[in-house]
């Protein structure tokens, strides 16, 4: 399948600090790739390099076949949508006026404003002045602005970090819909369940390298110790091996009606994350 992003041995050094040491990965057309890693591991740095906001120290990256030095191209910018933590809005203007400016910059009809606001659940607030918005509302306006021109490739840096579960869910549905329509999404998040629900593949970035890259399901299976936990009516919790010997025991408990619940002990993405990085997510 065609690669939209190709990254080869990318390195970025700030002064004497190495942010990225040797990063390589590809993003396929139409997939959602989750870029996970501890705070300070270089996720935002990677997005900035891939969107022409930072020069790599060494290595190379191509987006839509363009090398990082030619990302200022006007047509390239129409094809991508970027939401990072350094995105800003005009405080004295309304949500509508902020989006109207971007409609004109991208040559998109203003009718698009309603459509993107519906996607982020802000249709009734478009007259509100930006300085009066809550943190989560700001984040949703920024996301709406990112989606205004129907980009083929989305860079989303922690798009739901300030959102309540209901709004996160609403936006997840929206993003999945976009993805179904063919939008490629490059996403960073500290929310492992978000990565699990949205991403076709996830990459773990740690110590300047991609330590692991695969489908969440496969990773969980790979990291699973294939044990099963059985909860019994007398309150005991028993961990059983996954093979035939475990099956006999479970059968006994089941036939004597002692079982409350049975769980396979697959690790969560969070468990794998901790396993790789050795520390909890912040």
């Amino acid at each position, binding site marked *: 399948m065609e690669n939209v992003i190709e990254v080869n041995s990318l390195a970025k050094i700030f002064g004497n600090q190495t942010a990225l040491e040797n990063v390589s990965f590809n993003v396929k057309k139409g997939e959602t790739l989750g870029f996970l890693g501890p705070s300070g591991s270089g996720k935002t740095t990677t997005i900035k390099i891939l*969107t022409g906001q930072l020069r790599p120290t060494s290595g190379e990256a191509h987006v839509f076949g363009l090398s990082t030095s030619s990302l*200022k191209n*006007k047509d390239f910018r129409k094809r991508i949508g970027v939401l990072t933590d350094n995105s*800003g809005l005009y*405080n004295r203007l309304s949500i509508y*006026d902020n989006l109207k*400016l971007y409609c*004109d*910059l991208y040559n998109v009809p203003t009718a698009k404003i309603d459509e993107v606001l519906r996607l982020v659940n802000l249709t009734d607030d478009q007259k509100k002045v930006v300085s009066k918005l809550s943190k989560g509302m700001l984040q949703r306006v920024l996301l709406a*602005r990112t989606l205004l021109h129907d980009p083929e490739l989305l860079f989303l840096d922690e798009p739901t970090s300030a959102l309540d579960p209901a709004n996160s869910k609403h936006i997840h549905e929206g993003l999945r819909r976009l993805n179904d329509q063919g939008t490629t999404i490059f996403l960073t998040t500290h929310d492992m369940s978000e990565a699990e629900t949205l991403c076709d593949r996830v990459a773990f970035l740690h110590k300047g390298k991609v330590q692991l890259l695969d489908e969440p399901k496969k990773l969980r299976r790979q990291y699973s110790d294939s044990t099963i936990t059985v909860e019994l009516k007398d309150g005991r919790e028993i961990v059983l091996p996954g093979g035939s010997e475990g099956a006999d025991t479970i059968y006994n408990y089941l036939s004597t009606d002692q079982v409350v619940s049975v769980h396979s002990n697959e690790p969560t993405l969070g468990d794998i994350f901790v396993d790789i990085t050795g520390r909890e997510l912040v």
Partner: protein
Amino acid sequence: MTVSMKRIYAIFQKDLKDLSKNLFVSSIVILPVLMAFMYSRMGDILDLHYLIINLTLASVTAFIQCAVIAEEKEKHTLRGLMLSPATLPEILTGKSLVSLILTIVTLVVCMMITGYEPANLVLISFVILLSCLFYLALGTLLGLLTKTVVEASVVILPFMFLFGFGSMLKPLVDDYAILGFVEYLPNTQLVELAYKIESGLGFGSLWSHLAIILTWVIVATILTIFVYRKREMDD
């Protein structure tokens, strides 16, 4: 490269709305208008007219331009413009229009108050407009070099003083050699041009002043573009 009027106009429209709600910055236009009222009683003296005009260019043109650019940086909105399909000429032209129009309005109001009627309005307008380009570039440059509006409005003060009142230092040039540069300041050149135009001299005796002002415009513009290109990168 084609320049999109639509994008320029969109940025202008946004700035106009934004500035109308930003009294901290827009209220600077009161300064030259007040000065114009004060000096209007002293009669029709060319030096006074140009004191007001130069003050307008330094305060309204350069200061407002500097503040609006610095605010785009401070609020991270410049990044959004840079990531959009808008090009450098489109962004900087769009971002200069509000300051330019406010300058023209302020100048006209001030000239009406002080009763300045140039001998050759067309030529004077052209020369002032050319000077405007320098002050726009200066404001943009300082706005790009600073991080916040507050920082920008402090950094621009010495420049406002130098370009607003610098021509008044001219009488001292004979006594203090280090002030020799004052002769070449765009504001001094503007006053000299005005005197010559007023006395009916033709283009032949004007061109050297025009060339000096144009040099200021070109140097400031090149520096501005250079710094803008640097700002496109985050490192």
